[in-house]
């Protein structure tokens, strides 16, 4: 029979309308085209013009439609009617909800604002929420950075005035060799995938350093299956090799870093370890041309990396000497570190060699003229096409800050930061530490806080301590326990509030943070703390207000629930004042706007904050006469000015002659302009300003014009961080503000101004023999925290999670497919399904993050595999280290920044019979939103 075939319509209409906004299925903030049919969301795809994703979109983004229609969406404000943790609520109206909140908050504000702890989780409006908290007057504010990746962010900013991900990226178009460390496959989601694709297309290479060879590490040309917590040691061994063989960029070190800056070497001096400075407080170097002292930025000088200085008989040596002294020691040789890192010495050497070869033998030159801050004009940008990216894998350890610093030192030694082919900053970075705020904590009844909460401590004077030396903040951020905790310490809030250490609070107010489940260490303990009652029969944490869009596990623990919208129903602002969406070649910011209206009685959380502020007449939110300045969040976005001419959005402001960008007056049509431009604004950096930005006066002028800073701010990269030396000096007994004695030794050891490596704390304590394995989580690319689980499409990909075991552990214990195991840490145990993975560090086990769910949450059926076979590793991790018998509560955090040390975990494993479901199991929560439907066939078009 001759084939005949039906006629089909190959040009059907795609949609009635496309509305362009910003994704919020993870933290990546891609541009999306939302296709509407009959006013309903029909299809979501990436926006081709968008600077972040350039049209592509990940699984989460494309599944946004299922997030938007999720049955777990909260429908109206809720007031608790059952005991806390039961999930029993009644729906109330917004007037009542706001009145309840104001009745709780206003008395606190009048008497003692620090009785409010206001912490936001996956918040993309931190410049706004912090502004609210500052005007309320509480010192107790932070977002989730402290339990996420503050080590990475803070180490980057302290070392080089910028950091990975939001503040920087590899030069994707020119890099020849990319080395990634502990990348969780989501920060930054699509740009890294786009970049990897481009590198591969050009024949470039990728080295993946990760105990687990999945995702990006699976496509890497080289895999380094490192033992967790030893990345810093591995990096320092590479540094050792590069220095030993002279494969470092001396010109770059001399011109652009503090390697030539002179350091006081008089052990008896109160200045020991501090920089030699001139009358204007400028660090001094020796000019190689004259052999004489000169401030680092004097025009025409060539800073000397080797010459020493004797002043009044005191030796001052350049930082470079201190580095040579330290890193050439045999303890950093590949042979010495190999066993500990689980990497063969030859491989370490081969990698050092590959880095050096690519950086120096494949040097690239871009012919663009530029002038540096010393006034010297250069004909070219010289490129070292080696780039690095790292994320939580190296940062979530108790040695994470120093490890991240070590990695930045390696980048700088290779001369590969801010050069073609290397790592590049994204505006508004680079930005020296000096112009960042310092922490503020002074609370007064009825008054705003004395300044922004979070900042970069330069020394003991900046610690958030009360006059009696006790912590001013509930999370004990910026105290001697972790002096440089730039993002706060959200993971300690509930634990400290429950313990009344350093003090008791009245109201805990949280946004989008699933603290009674996957966002906490010691999950069961946190549930107990949230429900614990004192002798008076009252809850130890008296009041809890929580805002979320969905019926998460945390909702059940709130007294008042303020239901947020979905990301397609709201205004948002991804601001240059905060964590913008810039690219290395462009400053960019973006908005979200209601592409559809909510069909429920819900409000955007930021608008609710504006409404609460208006009711309480918070300074900053009301005019002199007490009338509100802002109607809602959209109004705030357009009309708020942080300082004259600088607002949340940089695009389409009003200048003296028409529109202006960066600086300018508020423009009432600003949001419409954003919407018609696809939801974002981008301003491109001129070509001759694109590299060497910290020292490139062309860029500096452009940055001033854009309003990133008011005057040019060139600076040196800080291989040696003097701020850390100030804390060490205090611990050695110098200065007014003194640490408690029990912390002196630790501060001296861990706040070393040059990168060091030390074993993680949990390893110190949990006897290696008893808990021989490391246990980790990784976030799957198709899921974001707990959100993905309510998504009918995504949860089919990851509906439960096995614990992956390396071949050695698999065989030693005689495991077979379908087996279960009990995994125990010094803190607790879980019983979970196991699976075999050969491409895994032999002493490491791991699982996917945040797949396990509590029964009753997220509108899932009781039979959902997330709660029968899925599990959380969190049950094995405690927010405190095991007791040392000294009566003190030692937090399980990095001693510099307070970053939660999730990945220090050590465990043992044993085979066990399969239980009915994974353990521990918890009672089912009452669902305030019911359960989802039995069948989905979601087609909105006819």
């Amino acid at each position, binding site marked *: *029979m001759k084939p005949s075939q039906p006629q089909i319509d190959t040009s059907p209409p795609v949609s009635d309308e496309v509305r362009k906004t910003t994704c919020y299925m993870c933290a990546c903030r891609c541009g999306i085209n939302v296709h509407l049919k009959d006013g309903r969301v029909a299809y979501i795809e990436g926006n081709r013009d968008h600077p972040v994703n350039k049209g592509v979109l990940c699984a989460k983004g494309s599944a946004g439609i299922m997030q938007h229609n999720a049955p777990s969406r909260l429908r109206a404000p809720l007031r608790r009617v059952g005991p806390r943790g039961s999930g029993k609520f009644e729906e109330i109206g917004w007037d009542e909800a706001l009145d309840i909140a104001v009745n709780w908050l206003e008395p606190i504000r009048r008497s003692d604002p620090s009785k409010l702890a206001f912490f936001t989780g996956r918040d993309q409006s931190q410049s706004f929420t912090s502004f609210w908290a500052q005007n309320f007057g509480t010192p107790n504010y932070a977002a989730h950075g402290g339990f996420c990746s503050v080590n990475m962010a803070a180490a980057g900013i302290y070392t080089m005035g910028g950091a990975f991900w939001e503040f920087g990226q590899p030069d994707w178009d020119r890099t020849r060799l990319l080395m990634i460390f502990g990348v969780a496959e989501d920060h930054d989601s699509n740009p890294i995938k786009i970049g990897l694709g481009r590198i591969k297309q050009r024949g470039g290479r990728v080295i993946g350093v990760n105990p687990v060879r999945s995702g990006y590490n699976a496509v890497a040309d080289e895999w380094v299956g490192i033992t967790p917590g030893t990345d810093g040691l591995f990096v320092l061994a590479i540094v050792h090799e590069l220095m030993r063989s002279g494969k470092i960029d001396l010109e770059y070190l001399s011109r652009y870093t503090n390697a030539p800056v002179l350091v006081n070497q008089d052990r008896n001096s109160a200045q020991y370890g501090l920089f030699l400075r001139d009358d204007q407080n400028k660090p001094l170097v020796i000019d190689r041309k004259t052999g004489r002292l000169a401030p680092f930025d004097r025009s025409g000088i060539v800073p000397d990396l080797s010459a020493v200085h004797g002043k009044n008989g005191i030796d001052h040596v350049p930082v470079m000497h201190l580095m040579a002294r330290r890193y050439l020691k045999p303890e950093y040789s590949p042979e010495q570190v190999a066993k500990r890192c689980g990497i063969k010495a030859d491989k370490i050497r081969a990698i050092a060699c590959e880095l050096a070869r690519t950086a120096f033998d494949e040097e690239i030159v871009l012919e663009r003229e530029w002038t540096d801050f010393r006034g010297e004009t250069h004909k070219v940008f010289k490129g070292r096409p080696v780039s690095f990216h790292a994320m939580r894998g190296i940062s979530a350890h108790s040695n994470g800050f120093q490890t991240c610093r070590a990695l930045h030192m390696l980048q700088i030694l290779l001369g590969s930061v801010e050069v073609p082919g290397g790592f590049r900053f994204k505006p508004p970075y680079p930005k020296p530490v000096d112009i960042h705020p310092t922490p503020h904590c002074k609370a007064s009844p009825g008054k705003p806080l004395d300044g922004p909460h979070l900042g970069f401590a330069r020394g003991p004077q900046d610690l958030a301590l009360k006059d009696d030396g006790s912590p001013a903040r509930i999370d004990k951020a910026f105290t001697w326990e972790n002096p440089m905790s730039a993002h706060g310490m959200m993971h300690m809030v509930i634990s400290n509030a429950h313990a009344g250490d350093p003090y008791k609070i009245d109201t805990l107010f949280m946004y989008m943070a699933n603290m009674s489940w996957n966002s906490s260490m010691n999950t069961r303990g946190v549930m107990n703390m949230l429900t614990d009652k004192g002798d008076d029969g009252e809850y130890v944490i008296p009041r809890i207000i929580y805002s979320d869009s969905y019926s998460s596990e945390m909702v059940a623990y709130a007294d008042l629930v303020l239901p947020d919208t979905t990301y397609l129903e709201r205004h948002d602002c991804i601001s240059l004042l905060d964590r913008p969406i810039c690219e290395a070649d462009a400053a960019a910011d973006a908005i979200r706007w209601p592409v559809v209206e909510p069909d429920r009685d819900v409000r955007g959380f930021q608008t609710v904050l504006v409404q609460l502020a208006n009711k309480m007449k918070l300074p900053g939110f009301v005019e002199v006469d007490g009338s509100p300045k802002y109607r809602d969040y959209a109004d705030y976005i357009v009309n708020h000015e942080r300082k004259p001419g600088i607002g949340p959005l940089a695009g389409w402001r009003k200048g003296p002659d028409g529109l202006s960008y960066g600086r300018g007056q508020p423009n009432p049509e600003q949001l419409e302009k954003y919407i018609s431009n696809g939801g974002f604004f981008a301003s491109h950096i001129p070509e001759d300003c694109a590299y060497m930005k910290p020292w490139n006066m062309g860029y500096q002028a452009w940055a001033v014009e854009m309003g990133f800073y008011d005057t040019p701010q060139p600076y040196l990269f800080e291989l040696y961080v003097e701020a850390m030396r100030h804390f060490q000096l205090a611990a050695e007994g110098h200065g007014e503000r003194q640490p408690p004695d029990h912390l002196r030794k630790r501060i001296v050891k861990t706040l070393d101004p040059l990168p060091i490596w030390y074993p993680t704390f949990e390893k110190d304590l949990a006897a290696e023999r008893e808990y021989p394995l490391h246990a980790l989580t990784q976030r799957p690319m198709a899921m974001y925290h707990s959100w993905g689980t309510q998504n009918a499409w995504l949860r*089919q990909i990851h*509906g*439960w999670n096995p614990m992956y075991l390396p071949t050695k552990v698999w065989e030693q214990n005689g495991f077979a497919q379908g087996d279960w195991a009990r995994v125990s840490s010094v803190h607790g145990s879980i019983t979970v399904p196991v699976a075999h993975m*050969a491409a895994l560090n032999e002493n490491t086990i791991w699982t996917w993050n945040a797949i396990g769910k509590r029964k009753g949450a997220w509108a899932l059926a009781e039979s959902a595999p997330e709660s029968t076979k899925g599990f959380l590793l969190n049950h094995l991790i405690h927010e405190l280290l095991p007791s040392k018998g000294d009566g003190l509560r030692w937090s399980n955090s990095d001693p510099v920044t307070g970053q939660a040390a999730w990945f220090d975990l050590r465990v043992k494993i044993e085979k066990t019979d399969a239980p009915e479901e994974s353990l521990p199991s918890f009672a089912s929560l009452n669902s305030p939103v019911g359960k989802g439907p039995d069948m989905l066939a979601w087609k909105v078009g006819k």
Partner: protein
Amino acid sequence: MHPTPSIIIFTTLSGLGFGLLFWLGIGMPPVTGWEAFAYYFAAFALAAGGLVSSTFHLGRPERALKAFTQWSTSWLSREGICAVAALLVFGINAAGAVFWNVRVPVLGYIGSVLALGTVFATSMIYAQLNTVPLWKTHLTPVLFLLASIAGGALLGAHALISAMLLPVAALVQAIWWMRGDRIRNEMETTIETATGLGNAGKVRSFEPPHTGANYLLREFAFEVGRKNARRLRMIALTLAYTLPFFAIILAPDHWHVLAVPTAVVHLAGVAVARWLFFAEAVHVVGHYYGRR
């Protein structure tokens, strides 16, 4: 392959029904009147009952008629056409025999050819599939045809023919199984050819695409234990062939009484064999899921 009840019932019943029709068509026995009614009723009930059962596994049974269009390429379509044609021819034949005591031998022969054609087409639906190596053999149609006519003979109370066909059918079944066991270890398709990654090393399924089940796993990834399979094969051989054979040999005088109960036992045995036909069959797609 998932042993879907509706398909097992279909191939078992209609195989027996068309087998019986085959014998009736060639005039063995040359029945008329009430006797013809009884025989034809049984045969039609089995054949048509099987066909009806087969529609239960269709997603859209109301469109089943569309299946008659693709006789030039599709064995399933041919099966349907053959089956309907056979039933029509035998319908006329049966009407003549029952109501007018008339037999038209030519019509009967045509009917018998169509009946065998139906069973053959059924078997070719399976035997044509490259994707299921266990089925992909000339022995599969032989197996189906022999089971069909042996069963038909049994039900038609042809003691001698049954006694001759049953051992042959049993032998073919045994050879079919032996072949299956042999090729299981020398399949051309492996996880290495499925993924094309064999050059780089030994391939193992690490993570399935989704943690939950899907259509493919439900349809194709059925696994039956080797021990159970052996036990079931013995049961199938015993019920389908050994017991009926000995019933004929040992009780030839009571054969007319035993024919129906023996056929029922035989039917049960064939059903077990058919269950195994599916349950033991491995679809190559299983390689993608690390199953075989």
